[in-house]
């Protein structure tokens, strides 16, 4: 007969400290990898919304207009997807759990506006980078072609009042207006004239031409329509796009591209698509 076989174990544990922790008086020791809750470094956030797109549980909402970042704590499954997807690494997986409570907590963070305008990532063009758009008003005929061709509505032209105005915050120095000006009275700060000339020379008959074949997954550009304005590059949260207006180069780094489509909505010529 073998009875009370567990006696040794029981007696040993009788004289030992309890195996449990006195919760909540004794705090738990978190591991380095413990997935507790998501936190955000607000000042680094660019409100790109990639985290919300990558969240499998739809726990994150990003409002670009109100500049808010919202997380539903109960919905979050701590899968770490947003942290891995964030291009600015402003999301952090903290290793403590959130406080237990009877309510479903929704945390909203207001994202402060960056102090300076974000640097123009899309611009590989050295001349345009430090240049402001100027108009030689003596020669200007106020035709309005520049304003019509501006991809970001930065120009106001009034023929009657003889007004030509540029909104420097909105202008991305793409040079589309310089190219269209019949009087050549527009110029971008720095050496830009040769670029305009090169553009002219390179004019080709319009034939739909794409950056990559149709069967290749990812982002592609209808090169034949592209004006190399660089707006897509500016909108790209992962800096996957290279645009060189001088050399007429539009390039996407497919490794870096997360197909967030942020560029697609920004393109004034609708020449971008995600396959």
């Amino acid at each position, binding site marked *: 007969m073998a009875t009370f076989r*567990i006696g040794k174990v029981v007696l040993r544990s009788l004289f030992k400290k309890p195996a449990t922790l006195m919760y909540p008086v004794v705090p738990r020791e978190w591991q380095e990898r413990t997935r507790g809750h998501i936190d955000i470094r607000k000042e680094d956030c660019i409100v790109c919304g990639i985290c919300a797109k990558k969240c499998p549980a739809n726990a994150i909402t990003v409002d670009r207009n109100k500049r808010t970042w919202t997380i539903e704590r109960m919905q979050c499954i701590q899968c770490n997807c947003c942290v*891995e997807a964030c291009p600015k690494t402003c999301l952090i997986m903290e290793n403590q759990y959130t406080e237990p409570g009877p309510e479903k907590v929704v945390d909203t963070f207001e994202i402060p506006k960056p102090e300076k305008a974000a640097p123009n990532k899309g611009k590989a063009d050295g001349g345009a980078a430090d240049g402001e758009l100027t108009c030689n008003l003596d020669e200007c005929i106020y035709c309005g072609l520049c304003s019509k061709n501006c991809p970001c509505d930065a120009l106001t032209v009034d023929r009657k009042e003889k007004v030509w105005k540029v909104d420097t915050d909105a202008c991305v120095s793409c040079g589309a207006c310089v190219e269209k000006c019949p009087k050549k009275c527009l110029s971008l700060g720095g050496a830009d004239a040769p670029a305009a000339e090169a553009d002219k020379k390179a004019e080709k008959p319009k034939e739909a031409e794409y950056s990559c074949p149709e069967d290749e997954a990812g982002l592609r550009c209808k090169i034949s329509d592209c004006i190399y304005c660089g707006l897509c590059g500016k909108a790209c949260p992962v800096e996957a796009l290279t645009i060189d207006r001088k050399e007429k180069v539009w390039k996407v780094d497919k490794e870096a591209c997360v197909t967030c489509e942020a560029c697609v909505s920004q393109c004034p010529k609708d020449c971008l698509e995600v396959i």
Partner: protein
Amino acid sequence: MGKRTIIPFGPQHPVLPEPVHLDLVLEDEVVVEAIPSIGFIHRGLEKLVEKKEYTEMVYVIERICGICSFGHGWGYCASVEGAMDVEIPERAEYLRTIWHELSRLHSHMLWLGLLADAFAFDSLFMHCWKLRETILDIFEKTTGGRVIFSVCKVGGLRKDIDNETLKEIVDTLKGLKKEIKELTDVFITDTSVKNRLCGVGVLSKQDAIDLSATGPVARGSGLVQDLRLNGPGVYHKLNFEPVVEEGGDCYARCKVRIGEVFQSIDLIEQAVSQIPDGPIDVPVKGNVKGEFAVRLEQPRGEAFYYAKGADSKFLERMRVRTPTNMNIPALVKMLQGCDLADVPILILTIDPCISCTER
């Protein structure tokens, strides 16, 4: 012959970790028939493949079950990888095997505790769970989660374990082995435990074959059936024999699981000694086009995963068949002729996971 009475058992019952309902037809104290019914915890997870991208779906599949969560993630990823013709790096295969064996270890320790609880041996129950806690700590250290790991992804793994930590794990398990041995000796030799387990709920080898029993239930009835021998992972590079017992009763099923606890520790030691260095994932691009099926040995038995792509971000169909699904007919057979007092133990010895079964 006494009067027949029907006793409803479950879905809420102290012994049941998850909701299953049984109508027990009794004659005096003896069960003559058991009619099972499930459907209390259906969540429609398979349907979600239509809404979640195949890369996101792994987080849903992992939540089919809390105990064999890693195995589900692995089975799903393996089936999608098969459909896409992706070969994952060897280190990832090793790490998957190690995590899966750790899962088996913690699942069996949990089960041993629950079994002790079912025959009201509470100190044994608590000591089993105390040891299981060590394994959960290993999970938290290596994956960041204690229950849901979220480390598997299509194309490999999301987290690596460095070789130093792997050695630490082996050392921890070596220490744990002694303590587990003390407790499993109680299960194997203690008279009060044996009185409750020996000769109870015998499932003959023929019945196990006829009713397609799987996992420790089948192996407890003398059936040599272990998908680790030919399933995914690196088991073919490790040296092991399936644990098989001939008795077919609760005691045999308990012994099989105890044997597998030590076998898992041994397999982890072997895997750690062999693991190569290298990458843990390969980039996966494009859509799923083909279809693929994977069979995996979960702690509870054979699980089946089927994935079919629709040449889009979403799969057309995902199918999971879990071991408990296959063991319920065996359970019904075992229940016939047993005492009412043995019903909780019998239900536990198939290690039911109703969440898995219903998904």
